[in-house]
């Protein structure tokens, strides 16, 4: 009986803490026909461990503490499984799913757009997206982040692109 109670409680707690996956990530994974293929996930603990790998002037610990997870997806046109239509599909999701475009970033010759989803002064998602003929790259940050902290790190957003260079992925 105790074991049954434990299993039910554990299952309920798990279901309470599991966040809804963003539509964009679901779309990418559905197209890969494998929920674990392609998209990489970095969790808070890994981010905090890697925080010292960002420069001292870059993304602050305050914002990292408010991030639950980061989804990362990158495919260039020469990669196995590259889907040329995926970028257009993601564009259409962004256009209809309450994203606000806050900035554009050009970093190492590539153009990214940055979007947020927010309710009042809390940001639930920051999305960095690059869609070109040669490559699709997206970094989707999930959390409960203070708008003020997003503002204070807005010019440091390109530092998040270093994620692809870090050994945590």
């Amino acid at each position, binding site marked *: 009986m105790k074991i049954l109670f434990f299993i039910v409680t554990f299952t309920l707690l798990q279901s309470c803490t599991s966040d809804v996956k963003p539509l964009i990530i679901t779309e990418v994974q559905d197209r890969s026909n494998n929920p674990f293929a392609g998209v990489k996930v970095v969790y808070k603990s890994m981010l905090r461990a890697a925080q010292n790998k960002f420069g001292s002037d870059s993304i602050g610990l305050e914002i990292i503490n408010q991030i639950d997870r980061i989804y990362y997806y990158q495919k260039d046109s020469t990669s196995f499984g590259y889907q040329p239509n995926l970028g257009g599909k993601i564009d259409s999701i962004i256009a209809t799913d309450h994203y606000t475009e*806050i900035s*554009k*970033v*050009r970093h*190492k010759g590539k153009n990214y757009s940055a979007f947020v989803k927010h309710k009042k002064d809390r940001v639930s998602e920051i999305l960095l997206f690059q869609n070109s003929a040669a490559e699709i790259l997206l970094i989707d940050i999930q959390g409960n982040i203070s708008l003020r902290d997003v*503002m204070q790190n807005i010019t440091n957003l390109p530092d998040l692109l270093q994620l692809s260079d870090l050994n945590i992925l």
Partner: protein
Amino acid sequence: MLAALVAFGGSAFSQNAIDKYFNYLDGDTSLTKVTINSKMFELFTYMEAESDEEKEFKEMVSNLESLKVFIKEDATDAEKLFDEAIKKPGKEFEVLMEVDQDKEHFYFYIKETDGIVDELLMIGNSDGEFIVLSLTGKIDLAQLSKLSKQMNIGSMKHLEKLDED
């Protein structure tokens, strides 16, 4: 009707200094370019304003239109880029302030229309980091140092000197 068209045309096609004078930097892939649009500034209005001072700041931010920044970190040619860049601004810009201290050299320019500052341009070389920044909108210079804190733009901290004067 004609007046409305002229007004619309003026606002839609007016260029900021980065688009007008610093297009030549666009080809340099070692530079990072960040463009922040008015939507971002609108988000400031969602932040709680507790004091009158914060309310004034929010009012100022709601009148901003865009922020564009070119940054080149660890640039061995920062001084050369800086020397070239300070020759670029046209006559419509006047120097507001020059800061030359330690390893930092910054020029701040403003453009005024009918007595209202509608663009702030900053060109700087900070210990090997080259930066060009353009802020457009209806700009209250007295509030700018606060914006630099809110958006963590360290080089704009020099604008605090204007408060001291």
